[in-house]
């Protein structure tokens, strides 16, 4: 059974948008550009908060690496047709989803400011998670039927 093309294209697009978004924030940080504080609240408060780093590494940089890895795995799957590659990418999506959930909670309840770029990232990682689960189900189905058939034979 083939994994749906639409799912793969959504997966590819979401990881690419996520990468652009996270790379932009990473570059801004390392070039020392400080976003101004807007009347509507926003990025400066979030991006300069104590939560912008994990183990001393920029969260945006980790995000960029994560999205890029998913993007490359998807391309590798498309060119080689090896399902294990897209399965691996799909298995990684809960990590991004949980991280995003955590950061949205931080923004809402602790930092009390919303950052537009962080919200885009939350959106892309949620999309990746949903599509990832669908890919896993898609991938598992033929395997399950195969083992069921084998079980029948041994019986």
């Amino acid at each position: 059974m083939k994994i749906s093309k639409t799912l793969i294209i959504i997966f590819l697009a979401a990881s690419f948008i996520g990468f652009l978004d996270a790379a932009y924030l990473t570059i801004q940080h390392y070039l020392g550009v400080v976003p101004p504080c807007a009347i509507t609240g926003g990025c400066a408060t979030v991006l300069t908060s104590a939560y912008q780093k994990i183990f001393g590494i920029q969260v945006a940089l980790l995000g960029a690496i994560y999205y890029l890895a998913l993007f490359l795995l998807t391309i590798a799957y498309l060119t080689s047709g090896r399902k294990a590659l897209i399965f691996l990418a799909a298995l990684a999506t809960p990590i991004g989803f949980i991280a995003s959930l955590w950061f949205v909670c931080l923004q809402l309840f602790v930092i009390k400011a919303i950052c537009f770029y962080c919200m885009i990232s939350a959106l892309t990682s949620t999309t990746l998670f949903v599509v990832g689960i669908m890919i896993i189900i898609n991938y598992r189905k033929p395997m399950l039927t195969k083992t069921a058939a084998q079980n029948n034979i041994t019986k």
Partner: protein
Amino acid sequence: MNNYESHRQEKLAKEHIARKKRFIYQIALWLSIIVGIGLIVGGMIYFVSRQNPALINSSATIESALAPDDWVKGNKDAKTVLIEYSDFQCPACAFYYPLLKKISEEFGDNLAIVYRHFPLPNHQGAKPMAYAAEAAGKQGKFWEMHDMIFDNQSKWVAQSQSKIKDIAVEYAKSLELNIEQFEKDFGSKEIEQKVEGHYRDGIKAGINSTPTFFLNGQMLQSPRNYDELRNIIIQAIDENF
């Protein structure tokens, strides 16, 4: 048999060519992906780091004459005036604070730097700290309090509004101010109205973020670094001579 053999070899050769083609295709694809991503990242770096060509936003202006109750660093009568609308709780303002200090040291009497309040509504500590700076100013120590508030921003920023006043009083004590007077001024209508007035003037001038700078009355699109700010001030000073 011979015929079969040659057929088989031909088939093998074809397969070999096909495999070679696939290999070249793969390499070309991955190379173009790597180059593509490199170009995108490089483009973003260029976009973020380029010097701002239109630093002056000539459509947004403010009265460049100083008010008698303005806090001025440098020379009050300088021909070049840099007005900053700032918020004590804003991390970006804290980022510009050492830059402005350096600017004021570099330009000395050729420049007047003015601090005005623009406490953003989503910063609960911005207004109390503005009152604290003004109250310290009543005893001649506005800039000392201003520095103290920015130096310690990360320490008080997460505190509740009632706690922030206590912290401000602590700062006043360490600046050896008259605390009774300080607390009286902190809660005074006069100071509240002054801060409110700055905010209203800022809104009228089209400010929607902090820090916002006006150089001789013209709004600057936030300069990205020290050199950008410095160059535009040099330009303005040259024009005034």
